């Protein structure tokens, strides 16, 4: 079978001792682990103790190591970085260590693969476990060899001392460590905020290895999973097939309708919203004509409330049945505003609407930052500028829509899919949907098509498969169709932003006033850094207003950073322009020295050979013109910790990013082509510089796509962007060449590196457009119609 899964039950202890037989079969005993007393209580979604070495790694007789982590590989190379961290601490080779499959019945919670935290925080768990294991192994070796620990050396898992050798495998001899990890004992109760406080060990923090002894970490390493990807030998979630498995599809209107009518304080559906979303996003089923698919062999309709699905023995049969089944739906009762009225809909923010940040409680309007008095600051300014900016709803848009296999029995369920950033979340959704205790649903995660954030499909798809499996009594695989993914994603929220700012006669910023309107309910309020936090501004105020919810939203790679950076960094550029300054020099004059933000600025300026001077100095009447622009951006992940007067940089290691974009504009067609991007990040201590460079390249291309052409569209009833024709994504022909710059800072904690350049690129492109044309763009995507309109308004067409 393609999925390489075999039957048979095996306990974790047997697995640990057995050296890697793949486990499957529901009912796997969650027993046998040492330190069971520290395990979460029955029914907890986190069954594996987080403070035990044995939860994280197993040393086998052949001197190889299996590593366990809840951090999934989403294409960023994170799992390779975690292997590097463990191999470094243990002094084994990369060829001696590999990951066990992420399975909630065998894998401890050890951070989430999101919010720029996978390597930084996930790595701290892994480092603490490996460093603790290493100390224990050295102790065993000292006894075994009769040599003091200080006289031992380790290479490739072989401990040497006094002229003798012993391997880790021989020392462990099939036993468990049965050993607590001190750091993780004291931080065992992992609340959502405690894991932000970095629960393990940082690079070089004793008993972890001193940084100057590193052999692997900090040096470029290839991704361990690439050969499997390139030779079609790595099993993706979509490749899993179980015996007796049927194929299923969901039937619903193609494109979700408005959720406005479902809105209630505290969230529309509570924790069990996925089945409702599956059920047409609020449109009720009026009738289902089962006879309409009678001609399709083996096809069967499953209806649970407003949920309608089909199953068939073969995939094509299921697809045809879903397509041909006649279902009548109620009309959406609450209209969507339509794209053209989005700004008005967002401005209808209501005081008191919940913001749904990780800390419950905040309601609209949210005061993010206030220093000094902006009105006073504006009155002191020699020159002021202002602007209103708008971003659009964006799709996560994996190339492969989500897929899942669910096997539901009377006593439990197993789901196989690519889990989202939050471990065990889908299992909880499935449990609620099929009426099982949360602890009886096992979630196995395999590599999948990356979806760049939190979506809903990663819960909806296994939920659909589980509802179908329960109904037919067999395993069911659901592959979402293209329209499922695009029509029912939890989009990244659109924003409307008003900014006013002033500068004095000496070119110093005096005031910055930022007011945003967005329905955002899953990500943090506008980041305090992307809204002028980089600069020295004596009077600054940042406010977020919560607008009525049109759709469910979820974080998309660099969530709630695009609008802030797009608006703020254009306003800063405009201030530089009105005082006749070079955009970079203007920024330097308004920043503190010795700032990592200056490091990324200088890095891109140097790489791009930036020639100082005011923007838009060489405007041309030619139809095709070129320009160059700069922008800062980041992703600040401690959203819930924001508040008035808080300096983010002291709370969270935030990764500064800077970008310079070289663009070409065709004034007649309105098409912008980004020819080259120079992008720099300073993520602190970089575990794997080559893979961070990949992330800079990837985010530069993705950011270009989002900034230029991506936009969820909807009419007055439903979402209308449901394929790659109606939701365009940057194609090969138009991609920029990218010069990635990764700044290594050995004395700074590891930060995120998978998202930051995206927000920097939005204003870099817009500022390049101004440089090329002398016209500001206030709306993303900066698609041809937006460009033509802006040029026409400015009389420059």
């Amino acid at each position: 079978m393609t999925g390489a899964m075999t039957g048979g039950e095996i306990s974790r202890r047997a697995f640990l001792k057995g050296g890697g037989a793949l486990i499957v079969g529901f009912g796997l005993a969650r027993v046998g682990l040492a330190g069971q007393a520290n395990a979460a209580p029955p029914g907890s979604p986190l069954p594996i103790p987080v403070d035990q070495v044995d939860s994280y790694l197993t040393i086998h007789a052949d001197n190889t190591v299996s590593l366990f982590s809840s951090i999934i590989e989403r294409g960023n190379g994170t799992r390779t970085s975690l292997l590097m961290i463990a191999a470094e601490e243990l002094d084994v080779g990369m060829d001696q260590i590999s990951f066990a499959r992420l399975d909630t019945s065998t894998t401890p919670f050890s951070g989430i693969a999101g919010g720029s935290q996978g390597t930084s925080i996930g790595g701290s768990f892994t480092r603490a476990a490996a460093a603790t294991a290493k100390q224990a192994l050295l102790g065993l070796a000292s006894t075994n060899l009769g040599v003091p620990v200080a006289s031992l050396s380790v290479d490739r898992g072989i401990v040497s001392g006094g002229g003798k050798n012993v391997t880790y495998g021989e020392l462990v001899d099939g036993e468990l460590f049965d050993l607590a990890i001190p750091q993780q004992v004291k931080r065992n109760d992992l609340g959502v905020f405690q894991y932000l406080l970095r629960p393990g060990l940082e690079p070089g923090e004793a008993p972890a290895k001193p940084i100057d002894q590193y052999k692997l970490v900090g040096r470029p390493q290839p991704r361990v999973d690439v050969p499997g990807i390139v030779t079609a030998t790595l099993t993706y979630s979509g490749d899993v097939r179980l015996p007796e498995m049927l194929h299923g599809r969901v039937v619903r209107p193609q494109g979700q309708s408005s959720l406005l009518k479902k809105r209630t304080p505290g969230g529309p559906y509570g924790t069990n919203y996925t089945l409702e979303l599956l059920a047409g996003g609020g449109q009720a089923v009026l009738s289902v004509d089962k006879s309409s698919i009678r001609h399709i062999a083996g096809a069967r309709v499953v209806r649970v409330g407003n949920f309608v699905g089909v199953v068939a023995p073969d995939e094509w049969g299921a697809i045809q049945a879903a397509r041909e089944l006649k279902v009548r739906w109620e009309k959406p009762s609450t209209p969507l505003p339509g794209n053209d009225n989005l700004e008005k809909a967002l401005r209808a923010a209501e005081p008191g609407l919940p913001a749904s940040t990780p800390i419950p409680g905040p309601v609209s309007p949210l005061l993010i930052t206030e220093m000094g008095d902006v009105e006073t600051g504006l009155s002191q300014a020699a020159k002021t500028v202002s602007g209103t900016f708008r971003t659009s709803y964006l799709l996560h848009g994996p190339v492969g829509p989500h897929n899942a296999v669910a096997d539901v029995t009377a006593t439990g369920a197993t789901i196989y899919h690519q889990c989202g950033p939050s471990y065990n979340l889908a299992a909880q959704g499935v449990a609620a949907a099929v009426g099982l205790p949360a602890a009886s649903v096992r979630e196995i995660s395999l590599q999948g098509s990356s979806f760049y954030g939190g979506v809903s499909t990663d819960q909806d798809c296994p939920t659909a498969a589980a509802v179908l499996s329960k109904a037919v009594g067999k395993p069911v695989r659901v592959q979402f169709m293209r329209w499922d993914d695009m029509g029912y994603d939890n989009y990244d929220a659109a924003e409307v932003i008003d900014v006013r700012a002033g500068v004095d006669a000496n070119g110093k910023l005096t005031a910055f006033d930022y007011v945003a309107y967005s329905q955002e309910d899953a990500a943090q309020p506008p980041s305090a850094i992307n809204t002028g936090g980089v600069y020295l501004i004596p009077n600054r105020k940042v406010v977020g207003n919560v607008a009525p919810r049109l759709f469910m939203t979820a974080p998309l790679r660099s969530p709630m950073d695009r609008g802030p950076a797009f608006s703020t960094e254009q306003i800063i550029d405009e201030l530089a322009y009105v005082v006749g300054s070079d955009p970079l020099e203007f920024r330097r004059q308004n920043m503190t020295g010795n700032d990592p933000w200056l490091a990324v600025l200088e890095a891109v300026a140097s790489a791009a050979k930036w020639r100082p001077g005011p923007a838009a100095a060489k405007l041309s009447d030619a139809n095709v013109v070129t320009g160059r622009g700069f922008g800062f951006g980041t992703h600040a992940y401690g959203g819930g910790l924001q508040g008035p007067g808080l300096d983010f940089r002291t709370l969270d290691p935030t990764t500064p990013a800077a970008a310079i974009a070289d663009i070409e504009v065709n004034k007649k067609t309105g098409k912008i082509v980004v020819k080259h991007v120079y992008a720099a990040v300073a993520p602190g201590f970089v575990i794997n510089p080559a893979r961070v460079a990949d992330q800079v390249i990837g985010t530069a291309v993705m950011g270009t796509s989002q900034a230029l052409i991506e936009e969820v569209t909807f009419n007055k009833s439903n979402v209308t962007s449901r394929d790659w024709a109606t939701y365009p994504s940057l194609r090969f022909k138009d991609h920029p060449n990218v010069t990635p710059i990764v700044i290594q800072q050995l004395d700074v904690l590891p930060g995120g590196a998978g998202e930051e350049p995206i927000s920097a690129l939005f204003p870099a492109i817009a500022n390049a457009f101004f440089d090329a044309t002398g016209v500001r763009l206030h709306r993303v995507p900066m698609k041809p119609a937006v460009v033509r309109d802006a040029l026409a308004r400015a009389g420059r067409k």
Partner: protein
Amino acid sequence: MATKLKIRVNEHVHEVSGSRDTPLLYVLRDELHLIGPRFGCGLAQCGACSVLLDGKELRSCVTPVAAVAGKSITTLEGLPALWARKRKSAGAAQELHPLQQAWIDVGVPQCGYCQSGMMIQAADLLSTTKNPTEHRIRVAMNGHLCRCGTYPKILTAIKRAAAVMAKEERA
């Protein structure tokens, strides 16, 4: 019922169980358990499902299996053998196709979901164009979507593979 349809995939003949209108993709994945070609859109918009049909790139998600009878299909799994035949080294231990090796050497994939289709399209390109220019590569690859942003590295890898293949052919 008529005799069962037969298709030739990676030089093996397979008897198709599904109906004649089943898209080739589902036959490859569900009957032959080949995991190189993948479902991306079902609309021939993204190229995740691409295979070679007599050496030319084809979208298997919209091609009825009956349409490929009597022709030769190659998936990602078949690229090493295709390269071995081209070098007339059949029977010898198969090494990776230069494109696969370049993908590894350059470290192209991020999530990797689209990369099978990318390598298939590149194999089509390099079978007809030796040492293509950057512009030629950009145009040839334009129908294939990557959301992770690996295009720049794909460009590098194709140039690298092209150089290796040109050298092999001179040898």
